[in-house]
């Protein structure tokens, strides 16, 4: 199994080995020894780690998180990372995201459209170490490509691709192949893995900026 980033540990919680990070509880998640459980069933990145994908994260990275929703996953990311920019487009979840960010000085919430990087290029710094992406809109590969400008040399992309967002009726494998093809212009794909049983018809991707 690949190494976890510093700041992410497995702990026995209620008899099970669970991923944990240290920080203010956010969504009623179980805690143990002052650490809170990172539920892979509610987080694509959590599932990628749980399934042993090599994220190449050491901890302490600067991160752009696209599709932060109400902040469940990004709260864990911010727990073990450096400056963390969280972009979310829907107003309602941003209200929760703001609560999550308020108690995390390194987490910067942005109500913006991940398909329009101009909207936040004046706020998000250049040369970031990593983009984490979990946007459930059509054109997910395109979103990753447009945001590659924020990554430094060899910057990482950790993306979860939802097949149904691209095409409700198509075969997920065909969708994933298409996504991979679109990504290959800006990224070198290092590893892919379906996120079952945590998330159906999702593909986890680890890629490096070319």
């Amino acid at each position: 199994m690949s190494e976890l980033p510093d700041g992410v540990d497995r702990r026995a919680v209620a008899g099970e080995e669970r991923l944990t990070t240290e920080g203010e509880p956010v969504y009623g998640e179980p805690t143990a020894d002052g650490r809170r459980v990172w539920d892979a069933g509610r987080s694509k990145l959590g599932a990628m780690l749980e399934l042993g994908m090599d994220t190449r994260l050491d901890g302490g990275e600067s991160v752009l998180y696209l599709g932060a929703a109400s902040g469940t996953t990004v709260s864990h990311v911010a727990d073990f990372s450096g400056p963390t920019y969280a972009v979310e487009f829907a107003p309602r979840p941003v209200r929760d995201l703001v609560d999550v960010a308020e108690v995390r000085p390194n987490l910067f919430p942005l109500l913006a459209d991940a398909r329009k990087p101009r909207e936040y290029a004046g706020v998000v710094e250049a040369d970031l170490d990593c983009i984490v992406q979990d946007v459930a809109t059509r054109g997910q590969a395109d979103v990753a490509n447009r945001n590659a400008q924020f990554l430094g040399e060899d910057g990482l992309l950790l993306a979860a691709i939802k097949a149904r967002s691209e095409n409700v009726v198509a075969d997920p494998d065909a969708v994933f192949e298409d996504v991979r093809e679109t990504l290959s212009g800006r990224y070198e794909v290092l590893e892919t893995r379906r996120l079952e049983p945590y998330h159906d018809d999702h593909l986890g991707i680890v890629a490096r900026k070319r």
Partner: protein
Amino acid sequence: MTETDDAWFAGVDPGDPEAAAAAIADGEADEPRDWPALAVESGFAADEDEYYDRLHDATVAAAREAARAAERADDKQLVHALRAMDDTERTANELAERLEEWAGALLDVETGATGLDFAAVVAEREPADATEERAVSLARRVVDLREERDDLRTFIERRAPAVAPNLAEMAGPVLAARLVSLAGGLESLAKMPSGTVQVLGAEDALFAHLRGHAPSPKHGVIFTHEFVSGTRPDDRGSAARALAGKLSIAARIDHYSGDFRESVHDDLRDRMETIRARAEEDQTEE
């Protein structure tokens, strides 16, 4: 143009958090830069820690305000959806009435159903000629309109708690949307005296009263709330007044803060129980 012209902190006074939030909300830039270093260089922050602190405060404030503004705009969508729901329901019923006159005899439909339910029965028929085809087709349009109404209601039920969580909790999502609609928006509703909220939807009766023709109406659409309709007639005036007061408070919290406040709902429940208990007591005494 210098390197920091399109930075969020360009021209922003570090001591003015509102300006900072506005710059974040409205700014645009061609490409990202090393903003922390540039901010220190330009004197916006003493060091990168201070920059991140200011960035944190500004992004949290900007995101909170932007989310709230976007949701406030949602009250307009809620109003449109409510009016569309009323229109689809009304037109579905009107067409169903026409259909009943036509199809009852034509198709020899034997069913106790009337209105929209009658249309649903007819819509399932296999037409035998061109005339029946038109009647059955009309029935299908009625069924479509009923589905549209149901979809709009579902939309309102999902959306009202996001737009006005306290009002929706207290009035139910559809009545909440109706009050927002009658007031012309959540902001207008929040700014209304509770006496006006009490008679919203009873404008005709109110104008008749103002012209001296009629007694003052005791309630408008809030009559549909069980707190009023479930109260015995003698107490309905005071129940309506109490409910309108609470609804006004709920609308104000929704507009100005947007948080859900359990306490105002408890108050109403208590008040309701008191009125009910008194009514039961009186009944027992009789």
